[in-house]
């Protein structure tokens, strides 16, 4: 594949922004979590794109493995966050029978 790496980066940026937009717009906690997952994926894509970029540039001696390693960690962390997040959702639902973030305004100035 000869796609230049910056196209990958731009794609990652687009995905990140879509995720962020979703984060701002959606009220449903579960959907917001999904949007965060999109953002994490975008980050992962950037890591990989960067890794590819460094690995394939002239004069590189081998693969740049920090990116993929980080990506693996990110996947794990994403799983952890999803688990905790969803547990929180359950606790929240028990509390108030809703999963809307707009309901979370008891604490404010």
């Amino acid at each position, binding site marked *: 594949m000869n796609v230049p790496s910056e196209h990958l980066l731009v794609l990652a940026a687009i995905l990140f922004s879509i995720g962020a937009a979703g984060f701002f717009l959606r009220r449903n906690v579960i959907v917001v979590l999904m949007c965060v997952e999109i953002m994490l994926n975008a980050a992962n894509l950037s890591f990989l794109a960067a890794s590819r970029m460094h690995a394939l540039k002239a004069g590189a001696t081998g693969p740049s493995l920090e990116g993929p390693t980080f990506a693996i960690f990110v996947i794990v*962390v994403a799983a*952890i966050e999803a688990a905790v997040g969803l547990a929180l959702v359950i606790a929240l639902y028990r509390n108030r029978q809703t999963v809307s973030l707009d309901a979370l305004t008891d604490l404010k100035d």
Partner: protein
Amino acid sequence: MNQAIVDRILSAQTLLATGPFLALALGVLLLVLVETIPFLDRLRPVVFLASLAAAAWAATRTMTGPALWVFEDTYVANSTTSWWSVLFVASTLIAWIFGKRYYREEARFQGEHDILLLTAASGLVLMAGARDLLVFFVGLETLSVPLYALCAFRRARRDSVEAGMKYFVLGAFAAAIFLMGAALMYAGTGTLTLSTMQARGELLESPLALAGAALLLASLFFKISVFPFHLWVPDVYQGAPSPVTTFMAIGTKAGAFAFLLPMALLLPTRSAGLIAAIALLTIAVGNLAALVQTDLKRLLAYSGIAHAGTMLLAIAGDLNGDPQTGAASQAILFYMAAYTFTAGGAFGLVTMLEAQTGRPVTIESIRGLQWRRPGVAAALALFMLSLGGIPATGGFLGKYLVFSVAVRAEMVPAAVIGILLSVVALGYYLRVVVAMFMQPEVEGRPVPSESRVLPAAMALVCAAMVLVLGVLPGWFLENVR
């Protein structure tokens, strides 16, 4: 497994360097063990404290002597990180001791609570030692994830769950920003390790790296809670169980600063102005908003925001070229140490009062406190003065050191503005003192007058530390480099 790798990893040096983290991690494992085996749960406090003690001891081993760079420079143990580790241990201890007998319904989950707290502490240690974005990220998550759960720990309560949820959602967002930033840094420089990045100095000026640095900085700002990344802080601090709030106030901030310091070296010099502006805005917003608070936890939350801004000023100064290398780090460490004991003590006493009365502690509710609890009132007053930076307390010298960084870096106008804004802070600190000492006791539902031994002792220790740091800082200043 590759023998070379094993050799490399299990060297004495590595163990020495990662000692504090290992001690805490081991503590977590042991706690889980203790929790699962029926008859051992009495050992829980022992394990917990032993783990902390071991971590502290391990940290003292690296306090002097040369810096230990391990794992291909992704992790370091030097004097500063060791001090940070000691501070983290202290923070954990403060939060834990003041949290004794705080929980009622959730008391049966005390084991889980301790596990999560210790995990978070281990995350802090990792963050302070990290010199690699990946390591730091994992440390950050190791800190954050348990905290998300801890915030919502009183899960039957609306405010607790709300706090946990808010912290989690925003924390996840910040984590995503961090990752994107790290990825861009990596794209720009081809590495995740700070020392290597610094070695490739010119690449730091590449657009990708700059954008990445901005995003990284933003996510760190979220953790240290500076304007406008601070908005979650009051809500979460108020809603979270008070022991957790205590830990967050003094722990999280310290961890983020511990990494921000080496991280700041990667930032372009011209960002000093931006950072200084953010710092000043933070001081302003924190103090101004605190001025109109009535809930003590919220008030202290905003005060903490202002303090974060003050410390950020030192970083701005460092970036702008403080001729005294290492002074910013020392200043922030000292400031944070003072803040740990001061805010730790203050939050801790609030925790204690809340536990005793079962109600949120407000300025109204502590009116005339000195009649019933003179010791508590006196200690709280001392903490307030220290937070305000009055001499003879650690807060003063911290302020002195931080502002001297700014002054040396020729940011005098910023320093003047900053210090004038911190005059505002005394407005609300004094309100607390006024309520306790100068107003009549509140009618009905008074604070019980009997004291609890452990929190009282801890408060005494905090107060003593505040005074020692304020009056006899010599030893500390000489040993923290």
